């Protein structure tokens, strides 16, 4: 396997324009002759399917939900970054680029990030034109707010529902194309495998989730925009259905998987309350602007927060990071919370929680100001926990929120399988080892609206594709494998439910490949994951049949893939003997407990090649070069 990033040469500012000029074009009249498959209908997939439909391609779009509008992009709260500099506060494309490369702890490709920053500007224009109701100032102009990791106000938002509104914009554009007959939508349809013919991606095998029918779909190119793999941890802020199956099966067909160990933990989530817990809920990062984080100074202090006097509280972020205090970046805040809980000073029934206290802000600003700023979040907190955060501090704990790793793609967003493109969170490309807030939405839309329409055309125009139909032996073979896979899961008839396996797998990954990792723990985890996977394949109980709507069967297939990906995550984390961004190896830290990067040895993208079920995967390295932003140690003291 050869990794060719296809990064254009020359100055970064003109790189994307030059690349576009160098691309081959598909004649408008010929576009309808090309069949394109888009899997996933979130910001990346929805935007891509709509835009490609507008261009005249013949598009088929697939999602496992009942409607493309349900994709998990919908749950993003905070906002979307764009280098508009509407505030005249010194923002620029270069600054957004710089912040993103630095925020990613120097593990992203500079040219990709620069293009992302450039496209951010057009995204806002596009979304406004579609009718996305962004927040406005009284004068009628677009409003902005600031977000972590930036010193300028460049985040556009639609109340606390930015993801929802951007997704509905893309969804509506997609529905318009469906109505125009340019896109055919396949809801409640899950991609279960990729078909590669003559080394090129030529289609997918799907399962109709209502009838159970296994179907083959032929295309000239396949685009995956299926989101991240945070649900490998079982408990995450992802939607329950979010899964890695599409990217993992593509990986097994030859697409390299990059930086799987780069996962992001969000510091402010509502803590786990019991074994039945099915997901975690995020409380917006903005709360840290006015809330103070603390735990008792004493271990095992069981008093209620109001009984603990000021002098016996440890405001540990303010103590450890006097200049950034409660506003340190996500990875730093998360690790600090873990550290105090590991010392036995965590709060709440489980001891896995810290207080986020608004008492002082309420005294200083008045309850009404706090209500105006965070009312909806306080309400949501109360709905879930039954506690009133105006009266008692919130309890929060870090949770998995986003995965920076994903399928390896080149500058044109093509994977190591020609004709297979990967967009949004499903690829690895733009966030390095840590993503800044309000950048996920930006990347999904940049990839979908403004990158793939060009790069797909380039691929189609520069390759002569043979004629293929579903009768091809390759389609027959993969469809038969998928069918066997389904039957195998149903035939085990063991004793344990799918959820019980998933929960246990998630716990292993969380304990050993979560907020802090070390070599010994990772090796142990790899062994445990293998054992558990073996047990899964001999003792899982999947009730029902394959030719019916069967949610347990759907879940079983996804968990089976999480097992394999989980193992690769641990392996990748073990291989990367440094700490960077969300990847914290306990052996590699400064005397003060901060992450210690090793640029000399690890300034590369780790791209893993699948080698078969019982053969270890092969590591390929794409060296990263930093011509514009010079790697430096991040400090928030």
């Amino acid at each position: 396997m050869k990794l060719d990033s296809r990064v254009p040469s020359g100055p970064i500012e003109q790189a994307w324009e030059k690349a576009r000029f160098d691309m081959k074009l598909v004649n408008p009249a010929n576009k309808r002759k090309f069949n394109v498959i888009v899997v996933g209908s979130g910001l990346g997939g929805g935007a891509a399917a709509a835009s490609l439909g507008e261009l005249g391609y013949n598009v088929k779009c697939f999602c496992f939900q009942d409607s493309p509008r349900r994709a998990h992009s919908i749950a993003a709260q905070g906002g979307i970054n764009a280098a508009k500099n509407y505030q005249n506060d010194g923002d620029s494309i270069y600054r957004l680029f710089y912040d993103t490369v630095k925020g990613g702890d120097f593990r992203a490709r500079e040219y990709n990030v620069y293009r992302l920053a450039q496209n951010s500007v057009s995204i806002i224009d596009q979304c406004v034109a579609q009718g996305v109701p962004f927040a406005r100032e009284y004068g009628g102009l677009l409003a902005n707010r600031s977000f972590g990791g930036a010193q300028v106000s460049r985040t556009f938002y639609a109340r606390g529902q930015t993801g929802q509104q951007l997704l509905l914009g893309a969804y509506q554009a997609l529905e318009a194309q469906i109505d125009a007959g340019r896109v055919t939508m396949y809801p409640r349809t899950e991609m279960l495998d990729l078909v590669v013919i003559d080394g090129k991606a030529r289609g997918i095998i799907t399962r109709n989730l209502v009838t159970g029918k296994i179907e083959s779909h032929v295309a000239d190119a396949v685009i995956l925009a299926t989101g991240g793999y945070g649900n490998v941890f079982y408990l995450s802020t992802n939607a329950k259905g979010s899964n890695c199956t599409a990217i993992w099966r593509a990986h097994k067909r030859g697409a390299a998987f990059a930086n799987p160990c780069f996962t992001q933990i969000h510091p402010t989530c509502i803590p786990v309350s019991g074994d039945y817990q099915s997901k975690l809920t995020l409380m917006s990062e903005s709360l840290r602007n006015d809330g103070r984080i603390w735990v008792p100074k004493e271990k095992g202090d069981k008093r209620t927060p109001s009984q603990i006097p000021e002098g016996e509280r440890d405001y540990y972020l303010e103590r450890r990071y006097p200049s950034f205090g409660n506003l340190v970046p996500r990875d730093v805040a998360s690790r600090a919370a873990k550290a105090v809980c590991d010392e036995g000073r965590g709060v709440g029934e489980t001891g896995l929680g810290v207080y986020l206290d608004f008492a002082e802000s309420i005294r200083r600003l008045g309850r009404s100001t706090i209500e105006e700023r965070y009312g909806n979040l306080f309400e949501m907190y109360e709905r879930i926990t039954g506690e009133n955060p105006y009266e008692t501090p919130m309890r929060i704990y870090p949770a998995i929120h986003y995965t920076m790793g994903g399928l390896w793609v080149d500058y044109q967003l093509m994977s190591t399988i020609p004709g297979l493109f990967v967009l949004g969170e499903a690829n690895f490309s733009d966030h390095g080892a840590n993503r800044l807030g309000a950048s996920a939405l930006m990347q999904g839309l940049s990839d979908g609206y403004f990158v793939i329409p060009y790069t797909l055309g380039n691929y189609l125009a520069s390759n002569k594709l043979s004629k293929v139909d579903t009768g091809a032996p390759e389609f027959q073979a993969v469809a038969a494998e998928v069918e066997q896979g389904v039957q195998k899961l149903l035939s085990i008839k063991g004793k344990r439910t799918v959820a019980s396996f998933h929960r246990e797998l998630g716990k292993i990954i969380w304990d050993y490949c979560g907020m802090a990792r070390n070599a010994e723990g990772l090796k142990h985890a790899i062994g445990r994951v293998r054992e558990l996977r073996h047990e899964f394949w001999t003792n899982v109980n999947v009730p029902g049949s394959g030719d019916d709507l069967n949610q347990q069967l759907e879940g079983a297939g996804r968990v089976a893939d999480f097992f394999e990906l989980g193992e690769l995550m641990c392996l990748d984390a073990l291989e990367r003997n440094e700490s960077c961004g969300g990847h914290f190896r306990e052996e590699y830290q400064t005397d003060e407990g901060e992450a210690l990067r090793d640029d000399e040895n690890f300034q590369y993208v780790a791209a893993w090649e699948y080698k078969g079920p019982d053969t270890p995967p092969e590591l390929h390295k794409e060296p990263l070069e930093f011509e514009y932003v010079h790697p430096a140690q991040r400090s928030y003291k």
Partner: protein
Amino acid sequence: MNLTLHVWRQAKASAPGRMERYEAKDVSPDMSFLEMLDVVNEKLIADGKTPITFEHDCREGICGSCGFMINGVAHGPKSGTTVCQLHMRSFKDGDELYLEPWRAKAFPVLKDLMVDRNAFDRIIAAGGYITARTGSAPDGNAIPVPKASSDQAMDAAACIGCGACVAACPNASAALFSGAKISHLGLLPQGQAERERRALRMVAQVKAEQFGNCTNIGECEAVCPKHIPLAVIARMNRDYLKASWKDRGAVKQDESA
């Protein structure tokens, strides 16, 4: 606490359904309603029975996947709350709960508590968008939008498309849903060019999907987890009437549909 559930079980669209009784034991008040059902399902699986099918995804009240009737109320007893955000502390020991799918001709049951809501997608496809070909947009600040319009548009745009409005309406009308989209887009300057066409086409599609007529009962607003106001229906009616007046041909076409 312990609860008794009566759940609608239906194997597939074409099969008959019936209520089945289940006991939910040792329910923690901190559980969400769907987590309570997860626990019931784990037990059903262990006992070799078929688990209850219900739709869900985000479990944080935003994707619009979840929803069924609890004792005759869409999304259950708590106002402004989807069933995935409803917690068991809203119930008490010994409660008896009746769970049924959304009931509407346009929402056929697929299995148990899961229905097919694709009619909503087709209503949006008919006109619930602003045509803005990718790449053709002017600068985001080129057209100022008064804050009040933008805020009102956002109120309407908050709809999550769950279908509770239809389920709660005795006529199974989709007026709140379609009115929300027509209002959202119609309140913005960008939405003006297609405003009339949008109203005509969306209303025609609503009829084609066999949703009932709105008779101003207001149940929809009461159960809407996002508090979409009834005013959106008035806006839709106004846009529709205005557009029909201008384009009588379209009305005729629409009536024959």
